[in-house]
């Protein structure tokens, strides 16, 4: 059989963002996959030279639309650690609430896109319909649907009233009911299983050695989650990572689906324990030194390296996003798969390319 090379992407109906894959095929089976990036690089890290360290919060938030809150939170936690700022307990709980809301809407977005990747359009719409409720909570409490801009160095900018927390809880109740209704479809449907079970399998050893993060890693049976580092209020909240062992696309879907319910539970716990008091402390002085900061984003662990020199501009900011860590998995998962499985496998790592290229 002759060898065929097919360019997949950067513009492809299934891809939410531009990534290019050079697929070498032997008949219908992939023998080699080479990914290429560089279509949406914006040079955001370099902006530290002209934006001061407070303004950078709004820049890092825009690295990624979907995990914006968690980028800002990771950055702020880094700077706070560097400057020795103790954030008030209420701010830490509020950060957990908004970050878990972010995880929920990100996973719901992904579940929809994933259904779309194997052609289940109506399921895609159902998930996005539910996601709309989370976005409404975000807009009602922070002022914006996605880029919530709640983090500041030293705490948060917005507070939740008692009425708002009650509103969140009742909305979450209805989100939970609606998701339960879709559970049999996404997890037990014949079509879904046919397209996902046994596709793109990664063993725990492979996943660990490739340095994968987030649900992609946890679906292979490795229990690793940056929330176990107990940042923000996670030391006061009971948390066990969601783990699956099969390591295929179905397991990754299951992990994310179960994580939505976990997030609901985490938000309930955080609201239940929400202490009263200040939401931010005054920040004096300028950061000096270097620090690394990690938080768990919907796609996995994000890593920030920050170096400052006592001026209002940072010296260096470096962001390692979860997709950057997860793309190497494609090189292992794609060879041996059929051409029709490529969209499903590529989407199963939940690629976020603007994040990766910054």
């Amino acid at each position, binding site marked *: 059989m002759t060898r065929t090379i097919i360019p997949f992407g950067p513009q492809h109906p299934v891809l939410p963002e531009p990534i290019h894959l050079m697929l070498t095929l032997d008949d219908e089976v992939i023998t080699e996959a080479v990914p290429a990036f560089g279509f949406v690089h914006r040079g955001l890290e370099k902006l530290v030279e002209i934006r001061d360290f407070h303004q950078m919060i709004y820049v890092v938030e825009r690295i990624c639309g979907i995990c914006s809150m968690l980028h800002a939170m990771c950055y702020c936690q880094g700077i706070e650690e560097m400057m020795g700022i103790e954030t008030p307990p209420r701010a830490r709980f509020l950060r957990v609430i908004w970050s878990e809301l972010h995880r929920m809407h990100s996973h719901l977005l992904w579940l929809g896109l994933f259904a779309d990747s194997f052609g289940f359009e109506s399921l895609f719409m159902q998930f996005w319909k539910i996601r709309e409720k989370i976005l409404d909570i975000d807009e009602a409490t922070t002022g914006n649907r996605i880029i919530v801009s709640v983090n500041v160095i030293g705490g948060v900018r917005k507070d939740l009233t008692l009425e708002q927390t009650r509103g969140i809880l009742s909305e979450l109740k209805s989100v939970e009911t609606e998701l339960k209704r879709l559970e*049999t479809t996404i997890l037990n449907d014949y079509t879904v299983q046919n397209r996902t079970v046994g596709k793109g399998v990664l063993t725990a050893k492979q996943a660990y050695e490739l340095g994968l993060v987030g649900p992609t890693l946890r679906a292979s049976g490795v229990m690793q989650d940056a929330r176990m580092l107990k940042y923000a209020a996670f030391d006061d909240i009971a948390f066990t990572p969601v783990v699956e062992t099969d390591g295929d696309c179905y397991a990754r879907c299951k992990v994310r689906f179960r994580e939505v319910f976990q997030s609901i539970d985490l938000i309930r716990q955080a609201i239940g324990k929400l202490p009263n008091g200040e939401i931010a402390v005054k920040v004096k002085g300028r950061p000096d030194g270097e620090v690394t900061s990690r938080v768990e984003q919907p796609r996995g662990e994000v890593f920030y390296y920050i170096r400052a020199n006592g001026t209002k501009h940072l010296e260096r900011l470096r962001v390692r996003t979860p997709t950057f860590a997860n793309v190497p998995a494609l090189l292992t998962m794609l060879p041996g798969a059929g051409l029709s499985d490529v969209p499903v496998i590529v989407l199963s790592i939940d690629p976020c390319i603007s994040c990766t290229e910054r």
Partner: protein
Amino acid sequence: MFTMTSTILRNLLKEPATRRYPASVRPSFEAARGEIRNDIHVCTFCGVCAVKCPSQCITVDRKAADWSYDPSACVQCGVCAEVCTSGSLQQARDYRKPVRKKELVVLKGATTPPKHSDPPVTG
């Protein structure tokens, strides 16, 4: 098999989840971060908003009493309204209407501080 049937039936019986925009518009939430508006008669041209704005889309010229802002570069973060020293800068709930051309919003205040003999300057 038929795992979606109940969802489909429910959707057929319920109202649509979408709105017929722009015929039906949901009112903005109270906290929504919309358009930036400056009451130029109150503004003192201190320039704090211009310094703090992360997208650097505000320019303040103190001498000429000029406050201008580029709505297409604004990211609607609300920082400027939060730090405004005179309270003249406010963030409205509603979003800006779409425009055909990108234009700066230029607001002019009173140029020279009024002298004792002069009538008070307005506008």
